[in-house]
Every structure is written in C-alpha cells, then in structure tokens.
C-alpha cells in the first residue's frame, strides 16, 4: 500500500534524531526509520501522535496515492 510521507523533512525542521523522535511518540528508532523509508504504514494512533508533535494534520505528513491496481 503506497503511503508517501514527509516525516523526514518535518523531523529535520525540528533538528531531532530518529531515536529522540521515537521516544516522543513511544515507538522505536527502527519504526521511525521504516516509516520514513515508506516500508511501514503506521497505525491511525501513531499517525495522529506524529502529526500532533509537529502541530499539523495527518494529511500534511502522510500522502495516500492510489496505485494502478486499486484504480481498476
């Protein structure tokens, strides 16, 4: 499921590393890394927590684009 995100950019704007950001949202550095790479789609709860840290909406960080198979 394609779920692009701008987490790395938002995180860089706050000058915070993956480890410390993970502690803010109660997940591991590994999870943050995989989310940024697009290899893991966070749960709704986690996505909301992440958005709350940056004081933005979930849609500002995570972008859902339908792929060709789903369009059919």
């Amino acid at each position: 499921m394609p779920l692009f995100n701008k987490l790395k950019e938002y995180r860089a704007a706050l000058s915070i590393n993956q480890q410390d950001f993970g502690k803010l949202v109660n997940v591991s550095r590994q999870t943050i890394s995989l989310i940024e790479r697009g290899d893991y789609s966070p749960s709704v709860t986690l996505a909301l927590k992440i958005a709350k840290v940056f004081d933005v909406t979930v849609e500002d960080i995570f972008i859902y684009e339908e792929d060709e198979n789903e369009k059919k």
Partner: protein
Amino acid sequence: MKRNNIKKLIKFIGTYFLIGAVIGVIIGFVDWDILEQMDLLFIKTLFVGKIAPILSVVTGLSGLVIGFFIYQKAKKDLVHCNEDDLIEIEKKLDYATIFVSIATLLPMIFYAIFIQGVIHNITYPNILLLSSIWLLICGAFSILLQKKIVELVKEINPEKQGDPLEKNFSKQWLESCDEMQKNLIYEVGYRSFTFSLSVTIVTLVILCFIGLIIDIGLLPVIIVSILLVLQIFSYYFFAIKLEYKRKS
C-alpha cells in the same frame, strides 16, 4: 463464476492424480532385488560412525566462526555510522543469529545420529566422550555469542528489554517491542507456521513412500504425524483463545 470454480477444482484434482501416477510408476520400476543386494549397512556405518561426529564439529565450528565474524563486522560498523546505516547493521546481526542457531542445532542433530551408532556398536566409543565435550563447548559458545548479539541489538535499540539467559526472555522482548516490531514478529510467526506445516505434510508423504521401499519402522511416521497434529491444533487453540480474549 461457478464454471471457473469447477475448472479450478478439476485442475487441482487432476494435478494431484498426475503427481501420484508419476510417483507410482517410479516405485513400480524399482528393482527390489537390487536394493536388497546394495550394502546399505556400509553406508549407515560410515555415516553414523564416522561422518556424523565430523559433521558435528564442522557445522558447529563454522556456524560459530561465521556468526562471530559477522557480529564483529556489525560492531565495527556501529562505531562510525549514521542513522540510515543502522538498518544494515541490524540485518547483519540477524544473519549472525542464523549462524549461531546453526551452530547450536546441527551439532546436536549429528550427535544424536552418532549416539545411535554407539548404541548399535558401529562406531568408536572413545569418540563418544570427545563428541559429548564438543557438544557442551559448542552450546556454551553459542549461548555466549547469542548474548553478545542481543546486547549489541539493545545498544542500537535501547528500549529493548530481556536477557537471553533468562527463562522469560521471549516474553520480555516481545513486551518491549512497539507496534511495527510486534506486527513483524506476528507475520513472521504465521509465515513460518504455514511453511513448517507444508514441510511436515510433505515429510509424512515421503516417509510413507520410503516405507514401501525400506523398512523404516513405524516410529518416524508416528512422530511426524504427532508433530503435524500438534501444529494444527496449537494454531487453532491459540486462535480461539486470543479471539475470546479480545471479545471479553
């Protein structure tokens, strides 16, 4: 839709009949006299008495050496790495764990085969002591290396809890995992369950066919059948238990 289903069903049954027919033809052409004349005992003596203890040492030693080498490489890479490199280092530690598992399991299997030779007097009893000592050494080093690997993983992921030498290590480790890590563990668990189930079924079928050619006794078939039943029932037992736990 119904026509498609019938076609799929016919194809499915047909494939299995074809495989069965091919295997039946092969077995039908097996020359029973040749098999009886073959000195299978020589092969058994050679493997059980001599090759098995050697393989026990080779597999244990190579598993430990390779596992240690990979662990050291990962430790060295950790010193000068950035955040993006950590995933590759964790992958290296996963591979190190695989080799440590090989170093733990394979020597044990070959030792068990070797013991059969001792029981049936087709090997040298003085090798028994050396093999037993080797098994203990291999096991001890495997545990130590596994502990080192876990410590390095905890250094990379400080939120992880658990000591591999403790009884409830698996439970502590799982509780310290976040949503992504738990999902991964559950997905891996399910995939390995389905794979091992298929392997168990195929093993049972192969044992049945081998039993037609060589007298392997009833024990292998019984043991594999018990494992198959345990796998299936344990899956459904835990599925029902967890479902009721969620509903209550």
